[in-house]
């Protein structure tokens, strides 16, 4: 089973890099890396490492990046007429689904992880007066963990949408809306709360340590990830995919 998942992920990676291997693909990746890995750290200085909100930026940012990649998972295969042959192979349903999720997660999370040391180098070069600036071990684990869970959330919801989307464009449109909703829903919900509740929430966050908040967020993301993956596995039906 693990081998089958890797096999599917292997092909997805090959396809991803051949797709992004063109000039526009490379340029897009370079712009992203330059913005998150150089421009933002350069502008924000030490705050890029020390400010508590940066942890949540890393949890939020992959959601936008992942939609561009994951929309292709099934809708793209359907458009290119490769899906039915894949479904007619011996690969189990879960291997096809999880292989696609794994490929997207590794791609986007890998890109995120590359931007972290790039940001450190940028800060230490542009703001050297403060001495050597490094992430604390706790913060490094939080950033890597939250961005992984967030990427998994984006990937699982992407695969779920892509399963039924008639085209990559439709999948991308739906995913953009979902990622916007996922990113801004907490703000909307917070503003909709009665004033006393809002005060209570704010008080909790002011009194809670950053570790407590990270653990709470990570638990929430993990629960959402598992739920979405289970829903996607439940909706993966070969006959529906063939007829769609």
């Amino acid at each position, binding site marked *: 089973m693990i*081998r*089958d998942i890797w*096999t599917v992920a*292997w*092909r997805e990676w*090959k*396809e991803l890099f*051949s*797709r992004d291997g063109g000039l526009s693909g490379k340029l897009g990746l370079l712009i992203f890396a330059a913005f998150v890995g150089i421009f933002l750290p350069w502008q924000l200085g030490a705050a890029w490492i020390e400010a508590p909100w940066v942890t949540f930026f890393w949890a939020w940012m992959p959601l936008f990046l992942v939609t561009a990649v994951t929309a292709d998972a099934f809708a793209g295969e359907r458009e*290119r*007429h*490769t899906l*039915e*042959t*894949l*479904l*007619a*192979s*011996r*690969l*189990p349903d879960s291997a096809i689904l999880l292989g696609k999720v794994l490929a997207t997660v590794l791609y986007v999370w890998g890109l995120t992880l590359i931007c972290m040391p790039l940001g450190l180098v940028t800060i230490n070069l542009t703001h050297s007066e403060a001495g050597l600036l490094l992430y604390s071990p706790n913060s490094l684990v939080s950033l890597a963990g939250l961005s992984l869970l967030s990427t998994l959330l984006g990937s699982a919801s992407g695969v779920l949408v892509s399963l039924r989307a008639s085209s990559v464009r439709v999948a991308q449109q739906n995913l953009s809306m979902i990622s916007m909703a996922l990113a801004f829903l907490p703000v909307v919900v917070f503003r909709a709360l009665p004033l006393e509740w809002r005060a209570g929430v704010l008080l909790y966050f002011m009194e809670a340590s950053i570790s407590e908040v990270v653990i709470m967020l990570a638990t929430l993301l993990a629960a959402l990830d598992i739920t979405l993956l289970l829903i996607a596995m439940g909706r993966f039906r*070969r*006959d529906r995919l*063939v*007829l769609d």
Partner: protein
Amino acid sequence: MTACAIRTEGLTRTFGSITAVSDLTLEVEAGTVFGFIGQSGAGKTTTIRLLLGLLEPTSGRAEVLGYDIRSEADKVRGCTGVLLEHSGLCERLSAWDNLQFYARVWKLPVADRWDRIRELLDRLELWERRDETVAEWSRGMRQKLAVARALLHRPPLVFLDEPTSGLDPVAAAALRDDLAELAQNDGTTVFLTTHNLAEAEKICDRIGVIANGELKAIGTPHELREQLGSPRVRVVGRGFSEQVLAILRARPEVRSVARENGHLIMEPQRQGSVAPLVSILVGSGVQVEEVHPMRSTLEDVFFSLLGEEPVT
């Protein structure tokens, strides 16, 4: 392996009010090339999807290589190769990567992978171009690569859905020869759908004719021609006037009569009734020089089953 590669009993699939496959009962012997012929929309592709367990039958049952298509669909897919309506190749990848992927899917031992891919690409004359992306290739080359992919893991049974569709006659003939050779060398059972009757006649051991989801006839090409083909004769001579034709058409033992390239083509109701008809011709003043029995083609059989006249 069972002696019967495919066995279906009353296999039926409906989509709403449309019956795509109706009460299909057939057997395909192991090691043979079985041709499933029919027009577009006749139910050929749906039959393949049913046999692969990609679609659930509405009723009836089927076994492929001894596995039930409802409860053991994963086992069916585990020991078959396919070339479906579309080649299913990843066009962004090279031919080598396409075959590498499916070699991994079929868990070919690493040591065997390279040799098997080389063997197939060599036989299909694609080895030199293995590193090119498939998107750069002609349709004929892609179909060849898809055939290689279907046979990569040496499956005992291969489903090929219109493998030569969209190819020019030369490419189609080359692919047909490759296919026949590959299947023969590996002893593979081939379930082939096509609407190319000449192709079916050339490479198939047995043929099933499907129309509107129903199996109309099944047998070897020879059996079908014998059972369903009409016993036509070509009469060479002079004096085939309209009056003579009218006399023949009035005879109850004549099914049809027509002039073709100065000859007379007669279709008697049954074999053996030709001699009296020739006597009538001679009696009507026709100078009969030669009488040739005409061999029915699969095309004649097909059109007679469909109740249509062949397009000439």
